[in-house]
């Protein structure tokens, strides 16, 4: 590992008289004396270092494969049919092949975040200097980089320290990717373990990227009262020149804000965003606006409102150049990862570029300098606004046009078959043709904006546009708030919740994360978050899910961010920020071990993961998980022992990691005090599972918050919510309550009369609550004990 212990730079050196100028010597880099915490066994771990831990988890949660495709077509031996126990030409079996694809996805995801981090750090170092200090939350955050401390065993102080971390990530990811080559790894469990490794690396990359941008930009620094920012199509003033930014890597968007501020244009233009760039944009400037999750790309562009579209990287639609061209909006690509076939104009004179864009001579440009993007986007938007006035830029049909379009529909059902959510479009078209748009408007609610329906329509109906037209009133009323992404959780907040958690006042932590591939639209995420905030869980959110939560109003017209506070405590809905901010969620879990048990984090992954797994009642919910990044993020949570629930589309990730509650022998832990093996019941029952409906997910959330260390008060509270939700959904008592009741003190008092007979019938005997661990190394029993 490159530790870069010395850095010397000389600008001028004369030998005879020995004169040097501008000498810069840095000694003793990050790994060194000034952190007195003992180094754990696995600083900068290879996959092999944590393989035993992975196998321990995977023995409990054996992969259940759900092949999305029976074939392997990765090499010229193929296609190989792997169904029915057949092996491919290279010898690989179905299970290993599924895991291999999962590994590829996780590597793509982790590589994306790593590359994102590399771009960001390189850019920021170039602009602000390598010695720019890391600052994620001032004096309220002592453990500033829990994931990096834990995995890498270093305490990053400056931007340049992050380069060492990036070197590590890049070498590890290359190795993981190599194992997916034909003729390498063959065992599905080893593939799975490598998936976990990719996930862990991913969280390091996430943390690194967010730390870098929080430190340098004017983002909220671990601020529970971060400002409320506007969200929704209805918040945008389309009379002004409007810039749309899409993607994840925020420097170009920041420079757009800065350019407009510098030239007194802040009030005269609208800067709007989609996806994570939007979240990070509003962390920089709370006056910028979030349009919505990734699924809002087509509808917003086709409305004609954005005058200039600026894209960076990740989750950007691949047909944006076409879409932008249709509405005469110039496209500016800003990332080498997403050049869109455009000519690189980075070094050209801005006046020339702007003239080409405004005149329509070129549909777009590639500019790799964020500063320059700032200037060009703003100036172009102002000028293009005028030229676009005379052009047809909105493709949302009027009511009359909509009726005419709907009349074309022949009811062939191709659109419904193409729709990921199988929405009943033809039926709705039938009534729309008669002037009744209600059904079509309902479909808008569950539309994920993919546009597949249009491609298959043999009557060339711009179906997506018709949905937006039918829902016109709703679209205009999309005026919401989301709390700007706050970044890290303060150490103090973690301390504050310790008491309430052991006293049972906080039943768990639920993280709503991931993309917008929702089965029934955005509202379900908000409904789940509200339900759990109301039940005094701590809800955290990031990325598109954080936006989805904001797109909801209660009977008083309040969004959940107005209704619930943003503190990391009971009944909060805490927006940590964009995709890369997910590391603050895993980071909070890791900090619990550091803060309450004073466990060393430094290079001590296995022990801390074991601590988190057995103690921290946290669950991730990626209701609309779509991307490979989401796969990597989830994998990082698994290795840390945090279960993840995905929506119905999540089954396409090819396998679940489900426990078997009926296998009693799977659910023993060691009691660290005595070294004895103790049965603790199936907690948490699953590590990765898909839920078909929101209700099913809510029951699972409550259930998967249980941990072996729960105090009786804590367990009774968790059971109350589990049983209450189960009864509401299924109308009966759950059949597994006895597995979670260790003694009568665990029984919720208001349910005693219902539960006691069940326990008596099942013959449950009292169990002790151990100090649980899966690791023999954690057994504390010593000779000194009396």
């Amino acid at each position, binding site marked *: 590992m490159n530790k870069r212990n010395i850095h010397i730079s000389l600008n001028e050196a004369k030998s005879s008289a020995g004169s040097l100028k501008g000498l810069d010597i840095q000694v003793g880099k990050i790994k060194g004396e000034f952190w007195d915490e003992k180094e754990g066994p696995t600083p900068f771990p290879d996959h092999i270092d944590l393989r035993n831990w992975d196998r321990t988890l995977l023995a409990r949660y054996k992969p259940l494969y759900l092949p999305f495709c029976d074939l392997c077509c990765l090499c010229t031996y193929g296609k190989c049919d792997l169904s029915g126990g057949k092996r491919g030409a290279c010898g690989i079996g179905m299970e290993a092949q599924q895991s291999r694809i999962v590994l590829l996805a996780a590597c793509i995801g982790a590589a994306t975040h790593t590359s994102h981090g590399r771009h960001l750090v390189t850019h920021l170092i170039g602009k602000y200097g390598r010695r*720019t200090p890391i600052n994620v939350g001032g004096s*309220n955050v*002592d453990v500033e980089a829990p994931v990096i401390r834990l995995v890498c065993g270093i305490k990053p102080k400056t931007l340049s320290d992050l380069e060492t971390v990036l070197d590590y990530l890049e070498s590890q990811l290359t190795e993981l990717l190599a194992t997916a080559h034909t003729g390498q790894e063959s065992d599905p469990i080893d593939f799975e373990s490598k998936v976990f490794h990719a996930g862990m690396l991913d969280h390091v990359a996430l943390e690194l990227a967010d730390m870098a941008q929080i430190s340098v930009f004017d983002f909220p620094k671990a601020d529970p009262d971060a400002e409320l920012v506007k969200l929704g199509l209805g918040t945008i003033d389309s009379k002004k020149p409007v810039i749309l930014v899409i993607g994840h890597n925020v420097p170009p968007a920041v420079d757009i804000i800065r350019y407009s501020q510098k030239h007194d244009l802040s009030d005269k233009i609208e800067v709007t965003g989609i996806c994570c760039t939007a979240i990070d944009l509003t962390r920089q400037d709370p006056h910028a606006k979030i349009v919505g999750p990734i699924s809002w790309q087509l509808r917003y562009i086709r409305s004609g409102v954005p005058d200039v579209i600026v894209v960076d990287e990740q989750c950007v639609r691949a047909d944006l150049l076409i879409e932008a061209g249709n509405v005469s909006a110039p496209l500016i690509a800003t990332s080498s990862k997403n050049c869109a076939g455009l000519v690189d104009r980075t070094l050209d004179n801005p006046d020339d570029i702007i003239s080409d864009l405004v005149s329509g001579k070129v549909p777009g440009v590639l500019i790799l300098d964020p500063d320059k993007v700032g200037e060009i986007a703003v100036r172009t938007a102002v000028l293009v606004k005028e030229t676009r006035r005379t052009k047809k830029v909105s493709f949302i049909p009027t009511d009359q046009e909509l009726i005419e379009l709907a009349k074309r529909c022949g009811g062939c059902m191709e659109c419904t078959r193409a729709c990921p959510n199988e929405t009943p479009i033809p039926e709705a078209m039938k009534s729309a043709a008669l002037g009744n748009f209600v059904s079509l408007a309902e479909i808008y609610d569950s539309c994920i904006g993919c546009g597949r329906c249009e491609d298959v329509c043999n009557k060339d109906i711009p179906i997506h546009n018709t949905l937006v037209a039918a829902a016109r009133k709703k679209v205009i009323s999309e005026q919401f708030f989301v709390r700007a992404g706050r970044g890290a959780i303060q150490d103090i907040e973690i301390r504050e919740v310790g008491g309430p958690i052991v006293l049972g006042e906080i039943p768990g932590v639920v993280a709503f994360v991931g993309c917008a591939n929702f089965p029934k639209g955005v509202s379900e995420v908000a409904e789940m978050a509200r339900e759990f905030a109301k039940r005094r869980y701590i809800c955290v959110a990031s990325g598109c899910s954080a936006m989805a939560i904001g797109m909801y109003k209660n009977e008083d017209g309040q969004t959940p961010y107005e209704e619930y506070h943003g503190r990391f405590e009971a009944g909060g809905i805490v927006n940590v920020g964009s995709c890369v901010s997910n590391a603050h969620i895993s980071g909070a879990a890791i900090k619990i071990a550091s803060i309450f048990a004073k466990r060393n984090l430094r290079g001590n992954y296995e022990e801390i993961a074991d601590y988190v797994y057995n103690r921290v009642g946290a669950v991730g919910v990626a209701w609309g998980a779509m991307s490979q990044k989401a796969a990597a993020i989830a994998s990082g949570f698994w290795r840390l022992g945090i279960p993840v629930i995905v929506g119905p589309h999540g089954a396409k990730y090819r396998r679940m990691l489900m426990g078997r509650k009926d296998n009693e022998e799977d659910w023993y832990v060691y009691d660290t005090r005595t070294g004895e093996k103790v049965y603790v019941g199936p907690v948490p029952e699953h590590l990765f599972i898909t839920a078909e409906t929101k209700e099913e997910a809510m029951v699972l959330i409550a259930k998967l918050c249980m941990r072996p260390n729960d105090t009786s008060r804590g367990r009774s509270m968790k059971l109350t919510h589990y049983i209450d939700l189960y009864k509401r959904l299924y109308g009966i008592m759950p059949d597994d309550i006895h597995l979670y009741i260790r003694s009568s003190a665990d029984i919720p008092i208001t349910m005693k009369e219902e539960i006691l007979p069940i326990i008596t019938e099942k013959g449950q005997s009292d169990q002790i609550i151990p100090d649980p661990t899966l690791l023999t190394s954690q057994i504390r029993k010593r000779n000194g004990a009396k």
Partner: protein
Amino acid sequence: MFEDIPVEVGLVYEGERIRKEDMRVELGGPKVSEKFEIILVKGQDEIEDGKIFIKGQDLSELEEGKSYPIGILVEVSGEKLENDLEGVLERRIHEYFNYIQGVMHLNQRYDIWIRVGKKSFSKGLTSFMQIGSALISLYRNELPIIEKIQITFFTGGEEFKSYYHKAMERYENRDSRARGLLDEEVDTFYGCALCQSFAPSHICVITPQRYANCGAISWFDGRAAARMDPDGPIFSIAKGDLIDCEHGEYAGVNEHASRRSMGEVDRVWLYSAFGYPHTSCGCFEAIAFFIPEVEGFGIVHRRFAGPTVNGLAFSTLADSTAGGRQIEGFHGISIEYMRSVKFLQADGGWNAIVWMPAEIKNTLTGIIPDSVVSAIATENDAQDVASLKTFLIDNNHPLVSGWREEESEEREIETGYSGNAPVFSMGELPVMAGGIKIILKNAKIYAEKIIIQPVDNKNLKSGGK
């Protein structure tokens, strides 16, 4: 279990809030000056078990949208009950009321504020009889040591007045007993293992004069919990022989600590931050931290956001202890412990305190002895050790007279690594080596740590041991 009440009763309704527009009627609250709820332990034959009385109007007779006085008197008896448990049992009234769907209960004692929602009222929740019956079920189910229970609801009238005054008297009696109860007067302390679910080696000892670190559990709470569930996470500790009254060392506490910590902690001094201090978990409310330069303690609580007088914030100071370890000079405590006369007794008590945030200093008015109160600095008086020293001298802090003559002697000082600032920077730096002269221009040298050591390296004072 709750057949008599037409709405649901469950823990899930605990966080429910009832807004003014949704409320049928309000009981107590800010618009009503007199209200109370109280539990009294009575003799077995003084109680008609299961009986509910209503003095004044019942719920259905109260006018919609109005606020009314309310009194709730719960009388219980049982062989193992004693007056000391009344306060703990009484706090359940708050929880139980909130379990009822469409009923909100805030605060306690003479400060209660209850709202009954319109929806629940229209579902048929129209009588105190129903609420009383739910309360009785809950008390019986959760607390089997209650053998008999009767409840009376008052909504006005002479009887309400007279019970109101009785209640106020009783609260005052209880408080003065609680405040005055000494560790020497009891033979049992309580241990709490709740925090061990996150801090496995933390040993919490709760005595009448030393609240749990989290501030949530008093000796009375411990006593009640241990009686109700002897096998639960809060249990009694026979305090055993008093070994050292100044430091607060008890044989029973040592024995308990040794057993629970698997031998890692075998001595505990309850009233000292040195030697064998009480271990710190993670959720302590405040920390007492020794400042060697002035030989006294600073105190900072969790919610104080800025840096303390030694430049470190709560989160950093807290990080130096916690996790169930005994760290000398860094001591996790509860706010309530500061109200105790045993507070850091062995280290000098309040006379050893030199700095604390104004917010907690204000709440401790009357607790901090007059002799020292004005000599304890807050963030408004001193922001660093130098200004603290000046403040202490100016205000004649008791510690000042004890400062040794050799105070000014050099000590090993480690300065924190400070971001961007070079420790050494100069325009031209000549370096002579082996007959060659090298001139460094605009040289900046950064180092991770500087150690300044005296030539004659004497030992540091190790504190109040």
